[in-house]
């Protein structure tokens, strides 16, 4: 079907109602950029799920990074988005104003490179992300071992998707699976979930690919029964990328992970194996458990679970906006609240 046929189908759909959760921040952003929400039939409800790594990074993680920077005089290297995420009482941006050394890099490998060039500094890379970014975090550690770099380590908050799929299954009728995650891990998990009654379509990232995936989801849903379709076969194969999976398995092991706004999901994270603990900043610097209560009226958690739209949060567009984000969903371009705010909601 052409774009306009797909659009007509999605606009005029009058079958059973469907909730579709996109589990990828890039999908969220592109859906807004393409104005897709503005023409969907009212029977189709899109939910922006927990697929933006910045949005699900807990406040306590930011506290740990600030602790390293201010108490241990560590140089923090990080992707730019994370700098503005609020911790329980501060952000790395504010810490920088207080003298913390915080450097924005575009890749974990640049963090390792910085450590190599600054042997008199202890350098920590903030390792957040999903299956798509974990391989490059691991490569940074591998490079550090290869180069004999002792002043580099990573603070892990890496997450894996399968646990989240299980945990959020009640919030949606169908997942729009993130194409790039499945390009790494393959499609086995999607088939397993289908057997357990959880439906989903693997989607690509262009406007037309998104419309195709949405149309498939809607059509299959109206036909009834759990389903799974790979609508991104030009990139996603059943086996994924065994080399990337092997690399990650060699250096990391599964762990429980805290998802901001959602809570603890068992087995949904990875951390460095014991033998690489000298590259694990949490162990290397013996970070104490920083449990401060995070009090806020922010309802990012409810947004991530599709219980409310961003505009249903009392802070949205008032106390919380992209210049002064309260919740993490407002920080990243890929967060649901930021996308709602930036693209002005419905036309």
């Amino acid at each position, binding site marked *: 079907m052409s*774009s306009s046929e797909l659009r007509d189908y999605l606009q005029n759909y009058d079958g059973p109602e469907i909730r579709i959760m996109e589990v990828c921040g890039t999908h969220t952003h592109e859906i807004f950029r*393409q104005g*897709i929400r503005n*023409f969907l039939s009212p029977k189709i409800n899109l939910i922006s799920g927990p697929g933006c790594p910045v949005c699900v990074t807990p406040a306590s993680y930011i506290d740990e990074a600030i602790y390293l920077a201010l108490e241990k005089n560590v140089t923090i290297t990080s992707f730019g988005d994370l700098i503005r995420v609020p911790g329980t009482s501060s952000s790395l941006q504010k810490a920088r104003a207080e003298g913390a050394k915080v450097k924005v890099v575009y890749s974990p490998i640049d963090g390792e490179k910085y450590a190599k060039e600054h042997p008199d500094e202890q350098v920590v890379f903030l390792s957040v992300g999903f299956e798509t970014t974990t391989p490059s975090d691991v490569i940074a550690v591998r490079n550090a071992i290869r180069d004999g770099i002792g002043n580099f380590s990573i603070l892990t908050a890496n997450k894996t998707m399968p646990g989240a799929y299980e945990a959020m299954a009640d919030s949606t009728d169908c997942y729009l699976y993130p194409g790039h995650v499945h390009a790494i891990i393959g499609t086995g998990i999607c088939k397993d979930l289908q057997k357990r009654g959880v439906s989903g379509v693997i989607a690509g990232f262009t406007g*037309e690919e*998104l419309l195709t995936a949405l149309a498939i989801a809607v059509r299959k849903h109206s036909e009834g029964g759990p389903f799974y379709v790979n609508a991104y076969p030009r990139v996603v194969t059943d086996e994924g990328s065994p080399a990337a999976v092997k690399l990650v398995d060699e250096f990391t092991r599964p762990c429980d992970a805290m998802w901001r706004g959602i809570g603890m999901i068992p087995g949904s994270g990875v951390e460095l194996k014991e033998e690489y603990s000298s590259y694990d900043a949490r162990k290397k610097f013996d970070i104490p458990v920083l449990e401060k209560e995070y009090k806020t009226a922010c309802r990012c958690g409810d947004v991530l679970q599709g219980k409310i739209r961003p505009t249903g949060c009392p802070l949205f567009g008032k106390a919380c906006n992209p210049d002064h984000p309260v919740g993490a969903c407002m920080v990243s371009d890929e967060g649901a609240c930021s996308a709602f705010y930036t693209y*002005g909601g419905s*036309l």
Partner: protein
Amino acid sequence: MSDCITLAHGSGGRKTNELIAGLFKKHLGNSYFTADDAAVLPRPEGKIAMSTDGFIVSPWKYPGGNIGRLSVCGTVNDLACMGAKPLYLTCSYVIEEGLPISDLEEIAKAMGETAREAGVHIVAGDTKVAGKGQVDKIFITTAGVGVIEDGIETSGRLARPGDSIIVTGDVGRHGTAILLSRDEYGIEADVTSDCAPLWHPVSKALEVCPGMHVIRDATRGGVGTVLYEIAAEADVGIKVRRQDIPVADEVRGVTGLLGLEPLYLACEGRMVMMCPSDKAQAVVDVLSGCKYTEGAKIIGEVTEDNKGKVVMVTEVGGMTFLPQPGNELLPRIC
């Protein structure tokens, strides 16, 4: 002459005169160019337009131009936006001590060539030298005077619902070229700045459409910022079609990689025009035949609804608001 600019070159004495006679006059000289305190000029017929602009771009030289060419184009194009034929320019330099004279020569040469191309006379100038570290190599301010033909009136507040919106070429080139020439991202791509003097194509457009409502050069904030400015000034809505907005493949590649919106990247040789829709194709046709505006296209129209907003019709036929310009993307772009 010594090889570098020293504080003595800004003293107003012998060294300054050496610079004026040996370098500026050579490249910028014309019959009106003066070493006196002010240029004395024939009075033009018609309404006068006057404008000034400062240039602090870093780096001063980039693919497709340098601060000299930019400083002429910037002011000439500001005048052209008001429908004014540029006549005279003045230029004021603040130069950092230690700048190689060969660099200054390259800049002055570009200014002279661009001024001749634009048909404008540089009539007076000033040179100051600041100590090392007090400026970054060179800052230039130009001021210009132009004359407006009777019957021409352009302004952002004149946009009317139903007007067609034209952009005179592909967008985002200058910003992308500067970004790449800073070499902060480790990206290599063949992007040149669009920096160009546009009075000639503008005059041709005004010939076929004297009732042109708006002409605005899309500099610092790019085409997107211009569209929002005009939506607010004229209290109208603006609708543009993503697929009709020209973006060079190499610019699309770089901006895609960095997550930047080409509509918010600076241009230095692109105008946004708004005119009655029955004249739009004639304007595009005449622009297509002019140097620097070969890629002119109609990208959308002015609307009654969505006042103050810019609506984008997307690749898949969806509609969304163009995000409002946000924080400073890149400092020191022009």
